């Protein structure tokens, strides 16, 4: 008992803040009927979960590397678009698998080049020009190869063939995929070889770059067989995907939306992680000592990413229908219990007089909690987590212990962006897929982090929770109105007050606790 009192006394500000928030919450639910406030809380939790996925990744990256990744909202949106493609157009996804595998196989030759070049010394001038020449050549070869590879996509400029239409088709249960494109044997072999070679050239350019920076060094004694073997396996996988393309496409269409949604989630998260790793290792790494340039870079990447998405998928918002598991109406639906909901694949559940959507209000929240637990476990119970926690404080010391912090940086960047992309694909079915979906969410996430304490993982969760709940309460009060004593009419908050209210909450909390709820005093 005394220890509890002691703890409260030591953390008086936290205790008072917590009490104030609880009182605020109780006041907020006073004005509503039970069913109303339960649904509002559930919606708040769901918004909080998506916000958390963006905020936690952002905060991991900022905590460890001091990089404010302003492209995080765009990467969230890209996750949704990639997920949409896997979900609605599995044929296009499979068509891209072969070029991707071949490209990465080429890229994996990097250690081999490193090994072969380790005894070569370059003159200063050659070192300045050569890597760029090789990289540009590599990109050209890649473009050449990719343009000749048969992929079946869509046409943004023709309405009948635009992505929007396929989304609607799937929603109506009449998905009609276009006939696969074919190419003759010679073209095909040529394009596959170019893709492999393009990747290889890119790797060569990077190897020359690295060589220029460190000068010639003693070579490792043995050839890097493992990388070469993995590259070979990737080539085989790529060819396998090509040979099985039709069968796999048919299989994915047959498998139904639930399985395809699972695939979409996995693919979007992996693509996000890959993009993150690529971004960190090529663009961010040279700028660690220059925060302002970094900021400009991530801001610019965000804008470019959005334009690329518009160019590839078009400007119109696309539908991403909910997977079958959460999409049945009638036939025992709305369900009375959560088990019935699963058994009948209901889209809604009746609970305390309100209808709860299984996807929006339950599934998204469950995934959010799952991610919270998994990342928490990763941070607290694994060696890499220990290294991350230590690196947040002092990455020079971690490096001085013999740990390759650069690899850890890349891993964390990949993890952070992967989480954002996961958030994007999860939000697709509930928010719709559009190019502006990332911006407002990044703002919410930043507010959540400011509230919770910028680099604190529990802080990201708590901040997201507060932001999500507050937003949804304001939305609900916009519908039913708040009875205020000095107003004759109930006050109805207008939609612009939704983000404004979270900013207000942030300002108040930062006035009381300048480091946020869980922030550390510096």
């Amino acid at each position, binding site marked *: 008992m005394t220890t509890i009192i002691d703890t409260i006394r030591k953390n008086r500000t936290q205790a008072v803040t917590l009490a104030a928030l609880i009182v605020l919450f109780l006041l907020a639910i006073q004005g509503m009927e039970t069913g109303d406030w339960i649904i509002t809380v559930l919606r708040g939790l769901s918004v909080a979960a998506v916000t958390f996925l963006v905020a936690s990744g952002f905060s991991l990256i900022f905590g460890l590397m001091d990089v404010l990744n302003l492209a995080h909202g765009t990467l969230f949106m890209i996750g949704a678009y990639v997920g949409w493609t896997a979900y609605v157009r599995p044929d296009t996804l499979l068509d891209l698998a072969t070029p991707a595998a071949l490209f990465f196989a080429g890229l994996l030759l990097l250690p081999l080049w490193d090994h072969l070049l380790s005894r070569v010394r370059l003159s200063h001038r050659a070192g300045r020009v050569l890597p760029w020449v090789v990289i540009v050549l590599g990109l050209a070869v890649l473009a050449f190869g990719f343009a000749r590879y048969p992929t079946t996509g869509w046409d943004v400029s023709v309405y009948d063939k635009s992505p929007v239409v396929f989304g609607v088709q799937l929603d109506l249960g009449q998905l009609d995929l276009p006939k696969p494109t074919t190419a003759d044997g010679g073209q095909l072999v040529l394009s596959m070889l170019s893709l492999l070679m393009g990747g290889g050239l890119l790797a060569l350019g990077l190897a020359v770059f690295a060589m220029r920076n460190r000068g010639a060094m003693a070579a490792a004694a043995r050839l890097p067989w493992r990388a070469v073997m993995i590259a070979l396996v990737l080539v085989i996988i790529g060819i396998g995907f090509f040979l099985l393309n039709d069968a796999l496409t048919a299989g994915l269409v047959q498998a139904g939306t639930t399985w395809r949604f699972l695939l979409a989630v996995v693919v979007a998260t992996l693509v996000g992680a890959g993009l993150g790793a690529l971004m960190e290792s090529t663009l961010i790494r040279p700028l660690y000592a220059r925060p302002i340039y970094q900021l400009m870079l991530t801001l610019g990447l965000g804008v470019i990413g959005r334009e690329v998405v518009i160019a590839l998928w078009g400007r119109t918002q696309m539908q991403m229908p909910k997977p079958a598991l959460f999409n049945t109406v009638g036939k025992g639906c709305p369900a009375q219990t959560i088990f019935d909901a699963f058994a009948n694949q209901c889209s809604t559940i009746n609970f305390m007089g309100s209808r709860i959507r299984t996807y929006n209000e339950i599934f998204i929240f469950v995934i959010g909690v799952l991610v919270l637990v998994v990342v928490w476990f990763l941070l607290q119970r694994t060696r890499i987590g220990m290294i991350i926690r*230590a690196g*947040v*404080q*002092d990455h*020079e010391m971690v490096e*001085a212990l013999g740990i390759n912090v650069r690899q850890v940086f890349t891993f964390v960047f990949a993890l952070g962006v992967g989480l954002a992309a996961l958030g994007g694909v999860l939000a697709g079915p509930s928010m719709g897929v559009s190019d502006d979906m990332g911006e407002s969410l990044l703002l919410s996430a930043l507010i959540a982090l400011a509230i919770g304490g910028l680099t604190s993982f529990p802080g990201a969760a708590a901040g997201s929770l507060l932001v999500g709940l507050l937003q949804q309460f304001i939305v609900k009060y916009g519908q039913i109105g708040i009875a205020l004593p000095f107003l004759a009419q109930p006050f109805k908050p207008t939609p612009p007050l939704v983000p404004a209210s979270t900013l207000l909450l942030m300002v108040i909390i930062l006035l009381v606790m300048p480091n946020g709820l869980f922030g550390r005093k510096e």
Partner: protein
Amino acid sequence: MDNLLEVRDVHTFIGQFHILQGVTVNVPKGAITALLGRNGAGKTTTLKTILGLTPPRQGQVVLDGQEIQGRRTFDISAMGIGFVPDYRAIFRDLTVAENLQIAERKKGDLARRQELIFGLFPDLQRLIKLRGTQLSGGQQQMLAIARALVADNKLLLIDEPTEGLAPVIIEQMMAAILKLSADTTVLLVEQNFAVASQLAKHYVIIEEGRSVQRGAMPDLLKDEETIHRYLGAA
């Protein structure tokens, strides 16, 4: 003489400042060498230059006959150098146990060295579950040295181990450093000349970024003029 580490005429810049302007340090195997000099002379930068935290622009750093300058810090450290920085750099959010585990380079390092570490610093065993924030200054210093002992290091770079500690703790720390130097070579930065002179066999004096004098500690003790000129101590 068999030198484990040789720093040969290194020049190091931090930003545009030419901090080290020709530092040469030889660290003989199996003994403690002290880096002496006034505040801001460049002793800490010398340690950081060896580790590649502030890589040298000129000169060589040779460990066991192998040039290591220009390599990345983790690579240099993994060749067998342990670092105990002057600010101790205990990881606040990690427990004492985790602060030790993180220094493992191979699985089981800690288990193998446990006896040695807890023999030197019995207190740590008692504190094993506490977090870095909960330790006193002396305990943090013990942990910082213990952490450098977890992996199989040939050389320890120890920066100001007695700074800000109570006299009793200083004595404990000196005893521990003497004991561990039986199997590990040490390069020690120490402001407190009384401490340095009792621990070290060899010395190097650094003044304004240059190494100005080196030799055996007993000779320095006789040379009051040098002590006065460079160290300001009697």
